[in-house]
C-alpha cells in the first residue's frame, strides 16, 4: 500500500462520506416519519388506509433496495415521473426504511397494554391525548433497540446508491480503481470510511440500548 496515494485520495472519500451521510440521514428521517405515521394508522385501525399500509410493508420488505432504486430512477421517468439521483436515493431509502420502521414502532405500540389506555381515558384524556402523552412515549422507548438496528441497516444499504450514479463512498472507490487501478489503497479507504460512518452509530446505539433494556424508567 502506498501511503501517499492514500493521503491524496482522502479528500475524495471525505466528500463522498458527506454525500453518503447527507442522503443516508435524510432517508432515515423520511423513514422515521413514514414509520410513525404508518404505525399510528395501524394502531388506530384506520379503515382502508390500514390496508394500504399493509400492502406497502409487504412490497418494500420483500424486494431489494437495488431494484427499488432502479425502478424509481430508470423506470418511472418512462411514465413521466423524473427525479434527481439524490432525491431518488432519499426516497428509495426512506420508503424501504419506512416499511421496517412501521414494524418496529408497531411492536412498540403493541407492547403497551390496553389497560394503560383505559386508565388514561378514565382520567379524562381524549383518545388523541392518550396516544400523545401516555402510549407514544412508552412505545418509543420500547422501540429504541429496533430503531438502532434499522438505522445501522439503512446506513449500510446506502452502499447501493452508486448504482444510480450517486457519488457515494462505493462509487468513489469504484471510480478511482477504474481510473488509477490502485485497488488495495481504495479498498482500504473504503473500509475505513465505512467504519467512520458506522462505528459511532453502533456505539451510541449499544449504550442507548443497554440503558433502555436494563434500566427502564427511573434508574
Amino acid at each position, binding site marked *: 500500500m502506498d501511503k501517499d496515494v492514500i493521503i491524496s485520495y482522502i479528500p475524495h472519500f471525505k466528500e463522498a462520506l458527506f454525500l453518503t451521510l447527507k442522503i443516508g440521514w435524510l432517508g432515515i428521517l423520511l423513514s422515521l416519519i413514514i414509520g410513525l405515521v404508518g404505525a399510528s394508522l395501524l394502531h388506530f385501525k384506520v379503515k382502508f388506509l390500514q390496508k394500504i399500509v399493509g400492502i406497502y410493508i409487504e412490497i418494500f420488505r420483500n424486494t431489494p433496495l437495488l431494484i427499488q432504486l432502479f425502478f424509481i430512477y430508470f423506470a418511472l421517468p418512462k411514465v413521466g415521473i423524473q427525479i434527481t439521483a439524490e432525491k431518488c436515493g432519499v426516497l428509495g431509502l426512506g420508503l424501504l426504511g419506512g416499511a421496517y420502521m412501521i414494524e418496529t414502532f408497531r411492536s412498540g405500540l403493541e407492547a403497551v397494554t390496553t389497560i394503560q389506555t383505559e386508565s388514561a381515558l378514565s382520567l379524562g384524556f381524549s383518545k388523541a391525548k392518550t396516544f400523545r402523552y401516555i402510549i407514544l*412515549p412508552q412505545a418509543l422507548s420500547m422501540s429504541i433497540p429496533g430503531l438502532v438496528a434499522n438505522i445501522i441497516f439503512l446506513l449500510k444499504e446506502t452502499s447501493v446508491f452508486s448504482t444510480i450514479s450517486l457519488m457515494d463512498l462505493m462509487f468513489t472507490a469504484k471510480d478511482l480503481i477504474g481510473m488509477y487501478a490502485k485497488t488495495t489503497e481504495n479498498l482500504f479507504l473504503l473500509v475505513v470510511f465505512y467504519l467512520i460512518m458506522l462505528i459511532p452509530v453502533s456505539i451510541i446505539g449499544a449504550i442507548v440500548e443497554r440503558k433502555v433494556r436494563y434500566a427502564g424508567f427511573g434508574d
Partner: protein
Amino acid sequence: MNELLDVKYLHKEFDNNVVLKDINLSVKKGEVVVIIGPSGCGKSTFLRCLNGLEEIQSGVIRVDGLEVNPKNKDIVKLRQKIGMVFQSYELFPHLSVIDNLIIAPMKVQKRKREEVTKEALKLLDRVDLLDKKDMYPRQLSGGQKQRVAIVRALLVHPEIILFDEVTAALDPEMVYEVLETMQELARQGSTMIIVTHEMNFAKAVADKIIFFDKGEIVEETDDVEGFFASPKTERAAKFLDRFQFTTRL
C-alpha cells in the same frame, strides 16, 4: 334531586352472553356503595360501564344528569367527573410520581402547573408518600403505587370515584395502608363505589351494600350490619358463608 349517579335498566352482553341484566342503582352525593359478589359475577364490568369503558346494549347511565355513552363526544368531559382506580394500579411507567399526578389536570383540564403541583404534594403528604415524589413507579411497592393511583384519580376532582378490587393484587401487609387511605376519603364525604373482597372493610366503610350474582343485583340494602349478620336472600347467605369459611382457613 341529589342523586349523583343514576343507572336504569342497564343491560350488557358480550357476544350474546348476558353479563349484566337490568341493573338499577342510584347513588347520592357522599354515599359509599360497596359491591360484593363471587368472581365473574359482572361487578367489575359494571364499574367499567359506569366509566364508559364498555358499551352497553340498553339502559341509561347518568352522572350529574348527563348520559354516559362511550360514543358521545362529551364522554371525555364526563370521565373527569368519574375517577377510577384499577386493580393493577396502572401508573404511567414513563413518568415520575409527581408527573403521574399532574399530567391529567395539566393536559386535560389545562390547570396551571404550580397550582396542581401544590395540591398534588399536599395529597401525597396525606398518604405519607411525599418523599417518593421524584421516584418512578417501578421503584415503589404495590401499596405505594396504589396510593399514588388514588391520589392521581383525586386530583382530577371527580364527583365520584370507582375502586375496582384495588387491594386484590397486593401483598397482605400492604392491603391495610390502601384501605386506610380509602376510609379516610369516605370520612371526608367522597362519593365512592367500591368493588372488593375485603368483607371487614366493606362492613366498616359502606353506607350501602350491593350483592351481585350472575350479572344481576340480588340484594341491595342500607342496613350494612344487618346484611352481614343475616342476609335476606339465600344466595347472599351462601356467598357470605363460603367466604367466612375460606377466610377462617
